């Protein structure tokens, strides 16, 4: 069955590009920008499909796909400056990548290699949070530090609808509001926390309205509309950057695939519901818009797909070429310098 509360939400939320590709008032990005966002979403989806396939081949550990959520992730990241902070989750590979994190490292992480968490120097994107909820307050601390240091960097944290039930969500929201930190809270409400539907997760009508409880603005946006997400996150980023404090954004979207490669969605949701959401595919509506504007051709799309496939293949090769991690590396990563007990253990393993 259709996820009722989302139904209601869709009525009130900001959409700039309708599911059929028609444009609504307020769309302010150029055609060229739209083409770039489209290209990014194609690349992200290519990555997602590749990872699903690799996991089935046993080349990756558990993988959490984001198919269906590309607009929310690419749109949000596109609103950031390259030096802004990002604290995101296991499902946010597209967001992290668009914020500058290399595909190769994201893949390395999924092969089960801690080196995948080592962002390139200068890039302020944290390794993805695997625990649900704990990382939001980090974005508050990061933003707070930047503000205290007089920088105008902001911190964006992305999380799911399920994460809003954790006590840490509450503490993070409250601290951000109390200290007016430049933090953007991006909730990708994809309808489920594993099998648990959004309308059981909380009885509030929306997640965005929870912002009121902290004296913080809350905004609800069509999470499958890359332009709307870019706009709304852009406004929140601008508020944050100018010292006006945090914003909570609820991007209403849907996870088309399973929770992770270990999950079986048939146990908790209907094919129909998923089918319904496929008609709201975030790539499709941009394609329709572009096509109508004469800026999309099957050839261009094929070219994008081919280029993306190459890029992802290269990233896979790079990740898989990482030499096998040694035990000594494992022991040496715990502190700046191995402590006494660890030095003794390094001796024990003969390193």
């Amino acid at each position, binding site marked *: 069955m259709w996820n009722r509360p989302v139904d209601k939400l869709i009525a009130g939320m900001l959409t700039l590009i309708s599911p059929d590709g028609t444009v609504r008032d307020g769309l302010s990005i150029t055609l060229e920008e739209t083409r770039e966002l489209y290209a990014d979403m194609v690349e992200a989806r290519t990555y997602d499909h590749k990872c699903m396939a690799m996991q089935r081949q046993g080349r990756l*550990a*558990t993988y959490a796909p984001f198919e269906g959520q590309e607009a929310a992730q690419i749109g949000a990241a596109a609103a950031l400056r390259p030096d802004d902070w990002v604290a995101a989750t*296991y499902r946010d590979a597209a967001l992290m990548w668009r914020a500058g994190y290399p595909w190769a490292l994201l893949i390395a*992480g999924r*092969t*089960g*290699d*801690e080196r995948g968490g080592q962002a390139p120097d200068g890039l302020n994107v944290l390794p993805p949070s*695997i*625990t*649900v*909820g*704990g990382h939001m307050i980090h974005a508050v601390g990061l933003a707070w530090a930047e503000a205290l240091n007089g920088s105008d960097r902001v911190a964006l944290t992305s999380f799911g609808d*399920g*994460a809003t*039930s*954790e*006590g*840490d969500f509450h503490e993070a929201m409250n601290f951000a509001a109390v200290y007016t930190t430049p933090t953007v809270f991006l909730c990708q409400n994809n309808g489920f*926390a*594993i*099998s*648990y539907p959004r309308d*059981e*997760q*909380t009885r509030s009508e929306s997640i965005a309205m929870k912002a009121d409880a902290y004296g913080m603005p809350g905004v609800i946006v069509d999470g499958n509309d890359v332009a709307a997400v870019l706009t709304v996150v852009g406004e929140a980023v601008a508020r944050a950057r100018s010292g006006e404090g945090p914003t909570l954004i609820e991007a209403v979207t849907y996870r088309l695939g399973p929770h992770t490669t*270990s*999950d*079986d969605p048939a*146990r*908790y949701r209907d094919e129909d519901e998923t089918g319904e959401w496929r008609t709201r595919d975030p790539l499709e509506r941009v394609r329709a818009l572009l096509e109508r504007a004469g800026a999309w051709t099957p050839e261009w799309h094929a070219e994008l797909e081919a280029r993306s496939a190459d890029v992802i293949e290269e990233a896979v090769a790079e990740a898989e070429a990482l030499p*096998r*991690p*040694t*035990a000594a*590396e*494992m*022991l040496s*990563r*715990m502190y700046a310098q191995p*402590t006494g*007990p*660890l030095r003794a*253990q390094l001796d024990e*393993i003969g390193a």
Partner: protein
Amino acid sequence: MSEQTLAQALNGALATALETDERVVLLGEDIGRTGGVFRITDGLRAKYGEDRVFDTPVAESGIVGAAFGMAIAGMRPVAELQFLGFSYPAYDQIINHVARIRNRSNHRFTAPMVIRVPYGGGIGAAEHHSESTEAIYAHIPGLKVVVPSTPSDARGLLLAAIEDPDPVLFLEPIRLYRAVKEEVSELYYTTEIGPMRVEREGRDITLISWGAMIKETRAAAGQLEEKGASVEVLDLRTLSPIDQDGIVASAAKTGRVVVVHEAPRTAGLGAEVAAIIQERVLYSLLAPVRRVAGWDTVFPLKRSEAHYLPSPDRIVRAAEETLEA
């Protein structure tokens, strides 16, 4: 009797508890619709109803705290936390509330509840999904900590935990869920919380372990026996209260002990085992009690897992050095 995996035995025990005691309710993330990430509660919501088996919001402190309230009010809640690495948000509820209510109310209010948690590594899982922090729970007065390693113990200990008048943290070795099969009775029976299980008797050396590490320890014992040593293997199966007398008796007999656990060595539960043994039978010890454990690191991701986990080889080597000392 039927042949069951550890996972099946747990599922069966929960069904039996729901069947025989109407005070029993289950709650946890995804345990209803999907039967939980490891399917331990599979089918129970369909069979026993939505008012016995509850899916919950993603909020571990809430799950434990609500179960605690239910227990005080006379129910027998069995809460599931998805992985031991996600039990920490509930640590305050467990240590400050669940484990203390009997003490602070002088027996007037009690918390007869079970917190079930899959634990341990070895399946190449994501970060935080392979924790073995049993020591931080075994140190909490007022709580009991149980770890079955066989299907029949799983059933007996889980039913005992649900019956227990005090709160029990019930750790389930992920790696063994489907790795072991055994004939398990379908009758209602309990396995006493406290006494360890002698997995194998021997004279020359004692190997002490629990949870999934029993598998490696068993393999090591096999190799050692082949080389001519007579090996005793103890499965602690209750970590709190720890079976001091059982441990000490075996140590006194063999004079040589190796403790094996997955958790980091420093301040792990192996330290307590070593401390007890030297305290009570120092003069019977023919060699130091050795600890084969995880290194003092975070449990690593898939590609480094083999570097971290005690292997039969490491156990054999430590045992041989202990036998030679």
